[in-house]
């Protein structure tokens, strides 16, 4: 037995050369399957889950009510007006869609780069992507004013004889976001199939066997199944890889192709993508840290995972900081009067408090992640991640609102103030997101069972034999 454990330790240290392992020692195929599927199949629901579902469910109900009220009254219930016509709706859209990016990066790019540690966090990160994109998609549709005509954005043979304006970044958004959602959904679902079959086979109830059975699509785990599964999973990963950069690039075009000072810059695409991944990893940590605590999954989501996520956050955070520096530098270097005014107003104008907050967090505060002790302390890392999420929200607020509120014509300058509905709808989307995640945790395996099994040395050996 001791010899066996030694062997596992040796193998895990081979997989993860430095620091703690990505899988706690002592696990076998059976213990991994038991532990993860028990969360779903158990009749005992943790009190924390019930409490959270109740609270976030109420918030989601509020979103439903606010949406109904808005459909009846129009977007006049929001604080948007000329000149700040974008307001909270677009701030929240960009924030939510950015959060989704970490999921795609983990599932696609880290898969192709053979980063084994992704196996423990890819499943719930992908679910996070899906719910974040839903929350994101809500806003531009409601912001249309007549959301029931949203299908006009799609090119279909309509009786108007016109196509959508393909030169508009807003139409690019429709394609970018809907492709993103579709690919993420298929990728997530395909990843679930072998685990759904496991749940089907282990479920004690007839209903469970039927529901998981239908969802598992007849998966039997034969060698032929696995071969096809593997090639299509990699193909999908290849398809999803460009989406990691393309979606937020297109979102940044909403701003960058406009002439408004503070938007019209070529640094936007890379800076937005980095910001998206930065906030996405913050959200992964915000979700992972309580989940591993409540469900006792420290064996699978180890401090190594937290450490890696924190490092990625730090790296992308530095790119974002570089973006801020270049933005200010270009305002000075361009010699453009309006650009200069915009950046001075950003730093010292009426919205400067938000800019100062976001700079002090995203440029200075985030440097605490250089300290290993913080990267490996769940509680501190959770705190840092929440602060980073707030700062990234402020960043989008500053970009959208501060740039618009004072553009070329001083006669049209005006302040923007969110209304009660603006703020509570945003809380409502947080409710929708969290409620979706909670449902996912309860009814689907939140950690990929078969991919964790692949981390065991046994799996490693047998895979080589098949080859």
């Amino acid at each position, binding site marked *: 037995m001791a010899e066996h454990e030694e062997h596992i330790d040796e193998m895990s240290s081979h997989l993860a050369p430095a620091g703690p392992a990505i899988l706690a020692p002592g696990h076998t195929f059976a213990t991994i399957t038991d532990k993860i599927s028990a969360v779903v199949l158990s009749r005992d629901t943790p009190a924390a889950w019930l409490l959270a579902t109740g609270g976030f469910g109420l918030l989601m109900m509020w979103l439903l009510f606010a949406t109904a009220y808005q459909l009846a009254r129009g977007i006049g219930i929001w604080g948007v007006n000329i000149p700040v016509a974008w307001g909270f709706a677009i701030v929240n859209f960009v924030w939510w869609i950015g959060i989704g990016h970490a999921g795609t990066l983990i599932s696609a790019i880290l898969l192709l780069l053979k980063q084994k540690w992704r196996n423990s966090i890819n499943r719930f990160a992908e679910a996070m992507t899906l719910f974040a994109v839903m929350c994101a998609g809500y806003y531009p549709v409601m912001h249309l004013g007549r959301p029931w005509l949203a299908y006009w954005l799609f090119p*279909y043979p*309509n*009786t108007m004889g*016109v196509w959508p304006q393909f030169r508009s970044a807003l139409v690019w958004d429709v394609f970018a976001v809907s492709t993103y959602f579709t690919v993420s959904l298929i990728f997530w679902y395909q990843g679930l199939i072998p685990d759904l079959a496991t749940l089907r086979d282990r479920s004690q109830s007839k209903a469970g066997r*039927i529901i998981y*059975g239908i969802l598992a699509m*007849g998966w039997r785990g034969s060698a032929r199944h696995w071969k096809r599964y593997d090639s299509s999973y990699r193909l999908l990963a290849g398809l999803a890889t460009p989406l990691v950069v393309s979606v937020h690039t297109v979102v940044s075009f909403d701003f960058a192709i406009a002439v408004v000072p503070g938007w019209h810059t070529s640094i936007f695409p890379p800076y937005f993508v980095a910001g998206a991944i930065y906030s996405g990893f913050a959200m992964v940590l915000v979700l992972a840290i309580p989940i591993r605590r409540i469900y006792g999954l420290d064996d699978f989501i180890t401090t190594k995972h937290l450490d890696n996520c924190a490092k990625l956050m730090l790296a992308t955070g530095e790119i974002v900081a570089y973006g801020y520096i270049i933005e200010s530098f270009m305002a000075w270097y361009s010699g453009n009067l309006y650009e200069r005014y915009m950046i001075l107003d950003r730093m010292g104008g009426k919205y400067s408090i938000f800019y100062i907050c976001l700079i002090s967090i995203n440029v200075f505060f985030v440097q605490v992640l250089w300290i290993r002790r913080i990267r490996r302390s769940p509680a501190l890392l959770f705190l840092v991640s929440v602060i980073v999420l707030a700062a990234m929200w402020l960043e989008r607020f500053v970009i959208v609102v501060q740039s618009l509120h004072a553009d070329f014509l001083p006669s049209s300058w005006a302040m923007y103030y969110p209304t009660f509905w603006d703020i509570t709808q945003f809380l409502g989307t947080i409710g929708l997101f969290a409620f979706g995640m909670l449902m996912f945790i309860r009814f689907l395996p939140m950690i990929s069972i078969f991919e964790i099994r692949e981390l065991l040395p046994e799996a490693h050996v047998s895979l080589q034999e098949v080859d």
Partner: protein
Amino acid sequence: MSQVFHRSTNSISRFTIFGALFVLLGLAWVGEQIQRSPYVNYMGVAQIQPVPFSHQHHVGALGIDCRYCHTSVESSSFAGIPPTKTCMNCHSQIWTNTPMLEPVRASFRSGNSLVWTRVNDLPDFVFFDHSIHVNKGIGCYSCHGAVDRMPLMYAAHTLQMEWCIDCHRNPEKNIRPKEQVFNMEYQPPANQMELGRRLEKQYHLRSVYDLTSCNTCHR
């Protein structure tokens, strides 16, 4: 533990997943057809009117010019619905006792207008002007169809935007010499495209870019 699903489930699943594609395509096709059907656009649907006025009789058989009744068509956005007095010009002399025309006589006695049901009804967000079309050589026939052969009035076209914009993109297909605008018998010549392009220049039509600008019709 016994199998939950019978073997046949495999075939049924494949069939339904494959079949769903066709069902979805079929639904899309049905939706598209409904949007273009008379159920939605009233093309070819004769409306019930207070008096069964026949354009076939008055225009086709008697040869009354369009402008005798629709007096403002050349100078106004609205072609004009004739007052009851126009009807009575003739009908005070002929068919004076027919019950069919009693609503007309009643209107004349009381001074209350006849309330016709509008047949060619554009949405209110469309700015349409009859005079510009008539003065640039678009015949009545091009939009209203063979009115001289309609016993009861119906819309000859869908009046949907794709129909409007088709002509705005290619006006040379329908443009005719100005003196032929009210001629219901006019047949486009074999060299219509060539004639159309010549008339476009002669009548100083705005460019297709202007004609298809949103603001041309939606102001």
